[in-house]
């Protein structure tokens, strides 16, 4: 009988049934998709990093290297399992071409290397260590799609040519967010081509299981070992790998959580409305002695069946959507090891979603306990609060609007050139990086003076980065990379405080501040001069900024010229032009100009730089934003359709009475439209606010994982204030119009007949 009862209920309430299935399916599909993508991504990355034996600690270094000191340190530090020194031949991008494509505009540090001897292996697409024959080269997998490459295509380095024998996965530098890319060549070729670039060292350590990498990092720094370059650790590499796709998945996860909440609210509303409609029947069942458990089970089993259908549809939707997304991840990181487990986890995610919805149904059904048989029979008391009915539609509209706006705003923020200021890069148009030269100060000075004489430029500022010893107030000492210069002209975004104004101030990157346990207003003492022996300066921490460059551990200061200080490890010149539209041609001109110097110099148009680093992430987030927009619009349409239909259902008698009194359907429809529109518009305005202010904080938390703190949305006003509200209004109005057609079917005599 229960089956018949449920079957008839589905038959008689098709709209409600379809709406419940829709909510359950969308929630299940999004959660299933998020878990599946997260599982695939993390599993693929872990598998790649395990197979490749990624180092736990990596110190990049340019300049001379004391191998015996390194060996001695490695032997004496008990936590070291293996150590190796690899080389990276940094090439000039202007000299490089892949297939028919020049890499002149490429913003990565591209270079050659040979296969490592004992760990940090470069792997082919089947996960095997690559052995390269002479004359061949293996190219990073990320370039395959970017430059439409295939095996057999040529790679040219100046006048030299190699043949692309395949593509490689580099567990360290696979992500576009890693600023270097390694091309694998044969040892003989490496030696032969060495003259084409500048060699950098990768000093790599594998540590014993459970060894604290931060403690090791401190010990390495304290030992005074080569450190002319950024330091990177295993967790940071894993994070970098996970971020570009991870951000998209985080957005989908965020959306799936919000959709789940909306679904729970809507299903609760549907259930309460059904209970209200069935109140007399419930009263009758109670009166004739049917137990509370049996009444619960009548309703609960209906939702249980719907949740099974919802879960199945969710799986059927999640699977095809996940295929192209997983294909991209598999290209970059390889196939995940245990797809079965990932599907199982995804199924568990879907079950959890359905479980939560059913739990909410169970709780809502408790409302039937409170009402006595007599109250239910005679319509005393209500399951649903009539006053909150329209508030509900406002809340859902607000949630849907915010949900559409947040991913859109994240994508527009990431795409904005201003976003780099949250990443530790000054707010200029062009950036010139000068590294790996003994004459760095001389070359930098010449370039800077050329730029200042250039009529196209509007201004330029030089930043020089040196390594300093820093003493904390408790007497402990650390090494710190400090960028020295005028930080006020092209400032980065400070999450707290501001840039250093004088010699007695210093700003720290977020990572440094949290690792050293320092905040604005604290003091550190910097040792100046050669080897940090000449003088000390006590600096107040004046600001904290986020930074993802150079391993994220940097500082900014404005020290006066210090003749005795070591030469800079690298210099950066920030430039702005009088006409911003000339950035591309200016960059090109200077790229040619700096070729005459014997140094690694990179001239970058910052807009291109952003695109190169975040382009992949932005594309992914834009995809997630589109997915969100469609899911949210669908949810809004269903909610409005359902809400108005249920409201008419409950007010059917009133509508009939109005018709009996001479109102025409259009009058009644307009009164409903007016009431709904007021709440939908209010909800939409609240949604825009939520999407901008709390949404910004929420996105800030997500982007905090990228290293961007103190984050503010950089919005696209047309989209935020015109297009998205237009979409909401169109969807809501269409759904309302369809739903209000029900009024035409209400007869004027219905209110006069006792029984429906």
């Amino acid at each position, binding site marked *: 009988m229960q089956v018949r009862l449920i079957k008839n209920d589905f038959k008689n309430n098709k709209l409600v049934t379809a709406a419940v299935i829709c909510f359950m399916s969308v929630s299940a599909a999004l959660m299933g998709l998020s878990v599946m993508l997260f599982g695939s991504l993390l599993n693929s990355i872990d598998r790649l990093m395990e197979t490749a034996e990624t180092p736990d600690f990596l110190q990049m270094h340019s300049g001379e290297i004391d191998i015996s000191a390194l060996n001695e340190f490695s032997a004496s530090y008990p936590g070291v399992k293996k150590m190796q020194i690899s080389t990276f031949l940094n090439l000039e991008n202007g000299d490089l071409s892949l297939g028919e494509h020049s890499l002149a505009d490429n913003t990565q540090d591209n270079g050659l290397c040979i296969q490592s001897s004992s760990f940090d292996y470069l792997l082919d697409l089947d996960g095997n260590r690559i052995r390269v024959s002479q004359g061949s080269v293996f190219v990073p997998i990320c370039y395959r799609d970017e430059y439409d490459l295939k095996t057999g295509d040529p790679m040219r380095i100046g006048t030299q040519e190699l043949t692309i024998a395949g593509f490689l996965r580099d567990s360290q530098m696979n992500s576009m967010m890693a600023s270097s890319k390694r091309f694998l060549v044969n040892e003989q070729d490496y030696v032969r081509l060495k003259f084409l670039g500048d060699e950098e060292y990768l000093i790599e350590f594998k540590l014993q299981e459970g060894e604290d990498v931060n403690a090791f990092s401190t010990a390495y720094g304290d030992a005074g070992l080569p450190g002319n370059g950024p330091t990177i650790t295993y967790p940071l590499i894993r994070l970098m790998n996970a971020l570009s796709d991870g951000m998209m998945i985080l957005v989908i996860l965020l959306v799936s959580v919000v959709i789940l909440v909306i679904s729970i609210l809507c299903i609760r509303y549907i259930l309460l409305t059904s209970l209200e409609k069935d109140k007399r029947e419930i009263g*009758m069942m109670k009166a004739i002695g049917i*137990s509370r458990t049996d009444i619960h089970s009548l309703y609960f089993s209906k939702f249980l069946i719907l949740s099974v259908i919802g879960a199945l549809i969710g799986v059927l939707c999640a699977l095809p959507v996940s295929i192209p997304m997983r294909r991209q991840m598999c290209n970059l990181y390889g196939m995940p090891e245990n797809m079965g487990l990932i599907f199982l986890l995804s199924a568990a995610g879907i079950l959890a979603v359905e479980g939560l919805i059913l739990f909410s149904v169970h709780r809502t059904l408790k409302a039937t306990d409170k009402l006595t048989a007599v109250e239910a029979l005679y319509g005393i008391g209500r399951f649903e609060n009539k006053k909150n009915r329209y508030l509900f539609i406002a809340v859902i509209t607000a949630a849907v609007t915010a949900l559409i706006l947040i991913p859109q705003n994240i994508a527009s923020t990431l795409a904005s050139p201003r976003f780099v200021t949250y990443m530790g890069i000054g707010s200029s148009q062009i950036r010139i990086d000068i590294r790996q030269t003994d004459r760095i100060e001389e070359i930098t000075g010449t370039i800077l003076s050329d730029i200042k004489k250039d009529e196209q430029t509007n201004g330029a500022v030089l930043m020089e980065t040196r390594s300093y010893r820093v003493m904390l107030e408790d007497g402990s000492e650390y090494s710190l990379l400090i960028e020295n210069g005028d930080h006020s002209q092209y400032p980065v975004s400070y999450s707290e405080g501001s840039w250093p104004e004088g010699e007695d101030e210093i700003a720290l990157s977020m990572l440094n501040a949290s690792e050293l346990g320092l905040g604005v207003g604290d003091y550190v003492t910097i040792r100046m001069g050669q080897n940090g022996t000449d003088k000390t300066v006590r600096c107040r921490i004046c600001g904290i900024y986020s930074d993802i460059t150079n391993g994220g551990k940097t500082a900014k200061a404005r020290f006066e010229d210090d003749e005795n200080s070591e030469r800079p490890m690298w210099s950066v010149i920030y430039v702005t032009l009088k006409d911003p539209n000339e950035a591309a041609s200016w960059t090109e001109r200077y790229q040619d100009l700096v070729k005459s110097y014997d140094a690694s110099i990179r001239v970058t148009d910052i807009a291109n730089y952003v695109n190169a680093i975040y382009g992949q992430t932005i594309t992914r987030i834009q995809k997630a934003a589109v997915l969100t927009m469609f899911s949210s619009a669908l949810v809004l349409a269903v909610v409005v359709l359902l809400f108005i239909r249920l409201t008419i259902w409950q007010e059917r008698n009133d509508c009939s009475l109005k018709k009996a009194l001479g109102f025409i359907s259009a009058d009644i429809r307009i009164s409903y439209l007016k009431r709904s529109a007021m709440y939908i518009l209010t909800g939409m305005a609240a949604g825009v606010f939520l999407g901008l202010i709390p949404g910004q904080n929420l996105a800030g938390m997500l982007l905090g994982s990228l290293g961007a703190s103190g984050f503010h949305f950089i919005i696209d006003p047309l989209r935020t204030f015109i297009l998205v509200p237009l979409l909401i209004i169109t969807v809501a109005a269409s759904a309302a119009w369809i739903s209000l057609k029900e009024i035409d079917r209400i007869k004027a005599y219905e209110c006069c007949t006792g029984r429906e």
Partner: protein
Amino acid sequence: MKVLMKVNNLCKNNILKDVSFSVDEGEMIAIMGPSGSGKSTLLYNVSGMDQADSGEVWLGDTEIVQLSEDDKARLRLTGMGFVFQQMNMLSNLNILDNILLPSVHADKSRAFHAKQKEKALQLMEQFGIRYLADRRITEVSGGQLQRACICRSMMLSPRILFADEPTGALNQTASEEVLRAFLRINAAGTTILMVTHDSRVAAKCQRILYILDGEIRGELTLGAYSEAEITNRQQKTADWLKMMGW
């Protein structure tokens, strides 16, 4: 005759004030009184559908007021039958399934279901609605639906049947059909406690209790019903009601 139900000093929200009476086995009693006098409240409280503030209601050896909600529900399912003014039935079930509803929840075994289905069809036959078994509840008349409700109330052979204005929403013909059904089941031994406004309905009962302002103000014993005495019973009832201030 053996007492089936005994009500002692029942109070509820100032609507019922120290109400006491008893119902014998096989009796058919009408409770009458003006609107707002508390007659329906009395019915709901003695049947355990509502919770009394104080007092006792004994059904055989079971005291109902002190029972938990679940125990009350169990007792209503297995020991009581209900017929209401509004013919409450589940709209998603046909007439036969609605009649079977209490049986399904009383015992979930297949054998019991088969037996009960047989019984349901017999009862429907008895009350002249056998041919309506597969109809939806919106496809039958009020009188037919009320008779279906009586069939439902009799499915588990209750010790007492409570009826709240069972003819209140029906026309003359339908009321008479329903009343005949009540007389038939009472004749078969089922005790009936009925709230009614209709003196002609009350005149067919063995006893009438008159309630006013939550108190039982009078009682009229008419004795066993016979068709031949109907005019006399109706006159007697009317006179008594007039005396009570009706």
